[in-house]
């Protein structure tokens, strides 16, 4: 207080704070005094965009978040959506979705690994068993082997692989794009799924009646790593700060996490036992007999803002305060200053709120049964404080009070109204920028064009990348990564219930029109989930955009949300979890392509009826359902009808293989289905044997461009219909109930037979061009980056 604005700015900067002058004055005014150093850092973290969503929250409210399957909506560490019932128990799928973009750009291995580590804790702390992770990656142009972009692209994958593989959680789906716009700022989005019985959910809040309960910190010993991570992720990366930024990145320990997860599962089981016992004996707390496990405990992941952020949020969410003694925190190095103990973002830590009569057993499970102190240096579970009735957040250190603030003021919502300029909506966009399609007058060129497209970094095989991930640990895999449009698991032993997960978000669309890119991200993710035989039940989003202080970039962000909201509302699917990552730009001020990245969760009642992309029959019955063109305005009436048709057809067991056509050509998509047999190809596409007129009419093209038809952009699904032919007729009859047939949005592709290659018409008759070199062209681009 009493300083001029300029002096205050300098003083704050010296103290390492990124808070603005008006924010600093607001804090001092509220306190009636200058904040202590610990308090300054605490507000620095809590009021960063990363924690406060100050410039995004009011726009995010446009997203639909309610629905009859929503069990826990947006607001906790993870969302939960109802999957189904098994043996009279209701099961929920827990889902969380986050970015770790800035850390991954600065220290790719640790940044990406801690991204996985953090998202796994978000799911774990809901009382769930973690069953899957997924990753959506956006890298710069990595074509040059010597480039930093190549290094980032490789090392991020190494980090995700090292972490996910060690903890034993399969990586079931994901996507990757390479684009110059990410040269200085890669995107690493991670998604995690968990399974939980709905009456065993633990919330990220101190339970009702928990004043006086213990606050228990569990996990890695606190060290100086990751100090200032929250505010770091809310600034723009500058090359000269790279070394300083590195200190803000956390250090992963997947080995400790593996044990921490298993120990926590044991604690969940123990809490179930205690609850049953208390119910049986009628034992009660002051405020009544606990009904569910959530009445017995609160559990929350330590992320941004460290011990302070987590303990303040978990207590304030229950309407309580907290009193914490930093001297009780297990540390890795002596004499750490209090602000680092309180706010540093050391990984692999969680906080429990537990009744004192239960605490000793929980400590025993972590420290003795699972020997945390032997697994990692000074790792343990320890009581560090108490939940208080008084709504204050108080920190003690070395006998002194180093922080004492109104907990509501610390964790309550703040809002920045920033100016924005909306991007001009595009009317008819034609194809995205990378589209190589040209009218091709002769069929031999079709093969050439197909080769060009198959070897495009955006559409080539992803297998060399995901082979680095353990995609099948836990043994519950139904559709492994890469085998189908979405990953599918059977998460409940003995049950036929399945869960599907797909991700989507094409940056080339984001460049053209952020709003429509948002719509397409939703629609594509939904189409993928449907293509494995699932019913879409929930969405999550991570909004990766530029600097909100730049009105154009902020406008793109708002437009992106509008697109997501429109599509989700039209398709009646709620968002249950999400994350915002702003300030994704390089120091030159160039923002990344607008990147709303979406994950869609699907429910499957009976995993008997799932489909992969692999063609099942030697002479498959194939149809294309959809429309020509790409990135056109979506007709939701038709979209809903097509989706309803497919969901029901899957349930009847009529579809046995499926692939989504995402603005690529039908021939290209068909070829990729054939390549799902690996190098041992067993199908031929006979282009001498297809009904051109029907196809061309559908494509809206003229006969002289006939070869173009197969390569031209289309959107929809290629479906293999079950043999025998009665089933095929059943599907057609069934499909005729839908108006889409009248719209001509489907065609027969019954020209795929046993064999290997493209059979094409040439002036001399016909020619068979074996697929082998196309297969190699398809595998090669990513194999060079990920050998």
């Amino acid at each position, binding site marked *: 207080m009493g300083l001029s604005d300029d002096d205050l700015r300098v003083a704050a900067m010296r103290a390492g704070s990124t808070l603005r002058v008006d924010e600093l004055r607001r804090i001092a005014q509220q306190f009636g005094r200058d904040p202590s150093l610990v308090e300054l850092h605490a507000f620095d973290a809590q009021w960063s965009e990363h924690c406060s969503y100050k410039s995004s929250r009011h726009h995010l409210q446009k997203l639909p978040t309610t629905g009859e399957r929503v069990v826990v909506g947006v607001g906790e560490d993870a969302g939960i959506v109802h999957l189904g019932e098994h043996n009279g128990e209701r099961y929920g799928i827990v889902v969380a979705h986050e970015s770790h973009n800035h850390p991954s750009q600065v220290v790719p291995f640790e940044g990406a690994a801690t991204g996985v580590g953090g998202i796994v804790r978000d799911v774990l702390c809901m009382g769930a068993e973690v069953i899957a992770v997924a990753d959506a990656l956006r890298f710069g142009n990595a074509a040059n082997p010597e480039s930093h972009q190549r290094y980032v692209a490789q090392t991020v994958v190494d980090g995700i*692989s090292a972490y996910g*593989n*060690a*903890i*034993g959680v399969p990586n079931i789906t994901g996507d990757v794009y390479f684009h110059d716009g990410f040269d200085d700022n890669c995107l690493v989005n991670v998604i995690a799924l968990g399974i939980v019985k709905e009456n065993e959910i633990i919330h990220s809040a101190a339970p009702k009646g928990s004043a006086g309960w213990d606050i228990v910190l569990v996990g890695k010993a606190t060290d100086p790593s990751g100090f200032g991570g929250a505010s770091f992720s809310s600034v723009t990366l500058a090359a000269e700060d790279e070394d300083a930024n590195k200190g803000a990145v956390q250090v992963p320990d997947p*080995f400790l996490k*593996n*044990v921490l997860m*298993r120990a926590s599962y044991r604690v969940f089981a123990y809490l179930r036992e205690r609850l049953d016992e208390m119910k049986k004996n009628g034992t009660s707390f002051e405020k009544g007999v606990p009904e569910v496990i959530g009445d017995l405990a609160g559990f929350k992941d330590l992320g941004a803002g460290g011990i302070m952020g987590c303990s303040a949020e978990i207590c304030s969410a229950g309407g309580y305060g907290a009193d914490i003694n930093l001297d009780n925190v297990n540390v890795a190095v002596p004499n750490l200053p209090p602000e680092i103990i309180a706010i540093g973002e050391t990984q692999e830590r969680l906080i429990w709120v537990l009744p004192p009569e239960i605490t000793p057993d929980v400590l025993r499970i972590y420290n*003795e*049964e*699972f*020997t945390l102190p*032997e*697994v990692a240096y000074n790792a343990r579970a320890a009581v560090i404080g108490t939940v208080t009735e008084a709504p204050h957040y108080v920190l003690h250190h070395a006998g002194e009070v180093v922080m004492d603030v109104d907990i509501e003021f610390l964790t309550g919502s703040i809002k920045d109204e920033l100016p924005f300029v909306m991007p001009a909506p595009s009317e008819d966009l034609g194809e995205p920028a990378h589209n190589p399609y040209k009218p091709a007058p002769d069929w031999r060129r079709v093969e050439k064009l197909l080769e060009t497209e198959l070897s495009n970094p955006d559409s080539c095989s992803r297998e060399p990348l*995901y*082979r*680095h*991930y*353990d*995609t*099948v*640990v*836990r*043994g*519950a*895999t*139904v*559709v*492994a990564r890469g085998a189908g449009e979405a990953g599918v698991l*059977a998460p409940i*032993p*003995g049950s*036929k219930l399945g869960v599907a997960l797909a991700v989507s978000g094409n940056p080339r669309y984001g460049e053209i029109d952020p709003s429509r890119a948002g719509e397409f991200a939703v629609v594509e993710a939904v189409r993928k989930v449907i293509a494995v035989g699932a019913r879409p039940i929930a969405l999550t989003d991570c909004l990766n955009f530029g600097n909100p202080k730049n009105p154009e970039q902020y406008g793109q962000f708002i437009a992106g949300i509008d697109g997501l909201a429109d599509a989700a509302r039209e398709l009646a699917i709620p968002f249950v979890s999400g994350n915002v990552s702003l300030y994704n730009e390089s120091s030159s001020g160039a923002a990344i392509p607008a990147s709303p990245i979406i994950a869609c969760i699907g429910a499957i009642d*009976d*995993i*008997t009826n*799932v*489909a*992969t992309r*692999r063609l*099942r029959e030697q002479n498959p019955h194939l149809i294309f359902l959809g429309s020509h063109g790409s990135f056109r305005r979506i007709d939701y009436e038709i979209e809903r009808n097509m989706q309803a048709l497919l969901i029901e057809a899957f349930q009847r067991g009529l579809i*046995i*293989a499926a692939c989504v056509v995402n603005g690529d050509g039908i021939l290209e998509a068909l070829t990729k289905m054939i390549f799902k047999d690996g190098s*041992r190809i067993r199908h031929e596409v006979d282009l001498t044997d297809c009904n051109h007129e029907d196809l061309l009419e559908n494509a809206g093209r003229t006969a002289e461009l006939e070869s173009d038809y197969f390569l031209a952009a289309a959107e929809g699904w290629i479906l293999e219909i079950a043999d025998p032919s009665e089933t095929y007729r059943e599907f057609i009859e069934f499909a005729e109930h839908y108006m889409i047939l009248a719209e001509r949005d489907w065609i027969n592709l019954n020209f795929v037979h046993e064999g290997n290659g493209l059979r094409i018409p040439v002036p001399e008759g016909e020619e068979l061009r074996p697929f082998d070199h196309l297969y190699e062209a398809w595998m090669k681009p990513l194999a060079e980056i990920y*050998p």
Partner: protein
Amino acid sequence: MKARVAVLIFPGTNSEAETLRILRDVGVHAELVHWSRGETLPQYDAYVLPGGFAYEDRIRAGAIPAHDRMMDDVITGAQKGKLVLGICNGAQILLEAGLVPGTGPIRRPTAAFTHNAPVPHFICKHVYVKLAIEPARCAITAALEKNTLIPTWAAHGQGRLAATAAHLDEIGAGGHLAFVYAHADGTTDTSATPNGSALGCAALTNREGNVLAIMPHPERDAWNFNHADHREGDDILVPSGGAALFRSFARALA
């Protein structure tokens, strides 16, 4: 009395749940035994070491856990003729413990499953393994047909069998090479081996045939739902594929 099987958990093990599940689904009485509860191990009739990264693969995969206290009981049991099955990290531990191929002293490994080649990187890939010994040569494979082909997932960074040329000859001649990598049609050539493993080795057994160390995971392709597009029969939940090895293990216990 029915034989009891311990599924061991070291710090860093990660495949215990599905391993336990397939054992139980084929009728084995199996229980998890955790590293801080190791004192119960002598009471069990057989041991299964599941996959993971025990002790973080420090030094070399399997090197530290081979010296864990729990392995004292496994080694003693193996020497008494108890069945021991190690999968992936469990297989690495059995090599480091000197139980397979078992031609040298205990805890003085003569061969190792080490970094994949040519690229020393983790690989996750569906592969087939083919029984390369007479079924009865190893008690755990005794109930399999000759040349049985089993679907599995390779998921490891250190799965390449490495040993001196002379020792590899000994492994081949002594009938230690239990499974080799194969294509889906049963043919075996170097392109079927995902990790550059010497002799195309996917699994080794000891001289007595009571210990089997297999690198790829049969328990990850062990139910119809794991291979939904080529299932055996209608019920999606029944064991199939890789379950064959566990059935044979169950038969040997009976």
